[in-house]
């Protein structure tokens, strides 16, 4: 049980850190490559 709790908490921390890194990379990309590539002017919809 102790190990299970530890795994849940450790996994939760790593997932949160991973999400932070993912968003940081996307932000870096949006800032460095410019708005046009990451934020196109033309709206589009797949619906």
């Amino acid at each position: 049980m102790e190990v299970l709790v530890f795994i849940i908490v450790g996994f939760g921390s790593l997932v949160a850190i991973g999400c932070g890194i993912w968003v940081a990379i996307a932000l870096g990309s949006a800032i460095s490559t410019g708005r046009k590539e990451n934020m196109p002017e033309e709206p589009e919809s797949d619906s």
Partner: protein
Amino acid sequence: METAISAVVVIAYVVLLTFVALRARTSHDFEDFSIANRSLPLALVFGCLAATYVGPGFTIGFVGKGYNSGFLFVGIALAYAIQNIFVGLVVAPKLRALNNCYTLGDAIGQKYGKNCQVIAGIISVGLCAGFSAVMAKAGGDIINNIFNLPREYSWLSVAIIVVFTALYTTFGGLRASVITDAFQFASFAIFLPVTLLLTFYFHLHGDMSIFYNQAYEATAEGIKSTSFIKIIGLVTAFLLGETLIPPYANMTLASKTTSISRNGFVLAGIFSIFWFTVMVSLGIMARSIIPEDTLEDHELYKLVEIVMPHSGYALLLVVLISVVMSSLDSLLNAGAVCFTQDIVKSFVPLKNGTALNIGRVTTVVIAIVAAVCALFVQNIINGLLTCYAVWTPAILPALIIGLWIKKPKPLAGILSMSVGSAVSVTLWIIFIFILKQSVDLSLPSVIIPGLAFSILAYFIGHLWKTSKSGA
């Protein structure tokens, strides 16, 4: 030397944040200001959604709950994850698919007409201002803690946080809000879990049994001291209170595609489960580290102060300010967009430039109102719960039913929103101010009847109109 390193860390963070905010550039038209030209990719939609809902309640508040109630609150807050996933799968794609839609009020206006849009706009602006006041208060408290300011300088701390946030939101609109939110999300999503892991490794020396025993003890205490009705109230609040509030609706509408809108909400819902686990675990670890008489809203500060070096403590306090700013900027922008689009534009046709200017001025006005009201908000979580109580009965039935049925009737929308608001406000006044019940106990007694009356009023309005047009 330590103070100098702390100052460098804080200054470096502020400079980096300012750089990011400036890179977002100034909005040149209302579509850019309100929905970032419907161009946001998945990572930014997810990051901004998570940054907006992870406010002080979901950080400082949850650490305090973990300290007192262990993992009980993770179980209760699962309702929040379910709500986000439901919105992502069912509501967000339908909302995003609407054309020429800038706000939730716009969606309601397209379904029920201008009168309903104005009512939705008034409720949205009020809610955003109320939430902003809660965030400004929390931000002020954090600055007070950083500089050890006495209580009488609270107004100064609130002013600092509101002015800085309002500055980039006023000029950059939603784009600036999203870009800075992504930066702020990355900061706290990395640093707070790292703090948890460091605390576990250095202070508990990797001893799982200490953490397990504290978790078991706290959870048992939490279950024992929390009544069933209180649990129902909290589950109701997490399940319904924050559903599709204006900043989230704006993120839906700003997504590049309907699938990004759907996936953003689903991912944000799943992330919340991990986030709650991390915050509650920090609270559980604090039990064996911080003094027992620490106030609930100060347990995170105390833990970080003890376990981190001075510069790390300074950095984490700045990260906590980010937690507040990332919620505050989205609320200010959403409030301003709702006011311009749902209220002003419903009465006067506006040119693009004029709408943009009104949006900017409204951002400043809501910021000022929030700063003033912040001085009267007593407790962070209670303030949030007060806002939750009105939103759900007032808006959700009309919005969700309207998105699903073919020919919604304007009378049904007006009745649902008016009755839902009136019933929830009246019950709130009765329970809180006359019967003097606690906020969390009163919540189900307000939201559930408010919701029931709102749905009932909707169907009365719908059937009334149907029978009239059939006659």
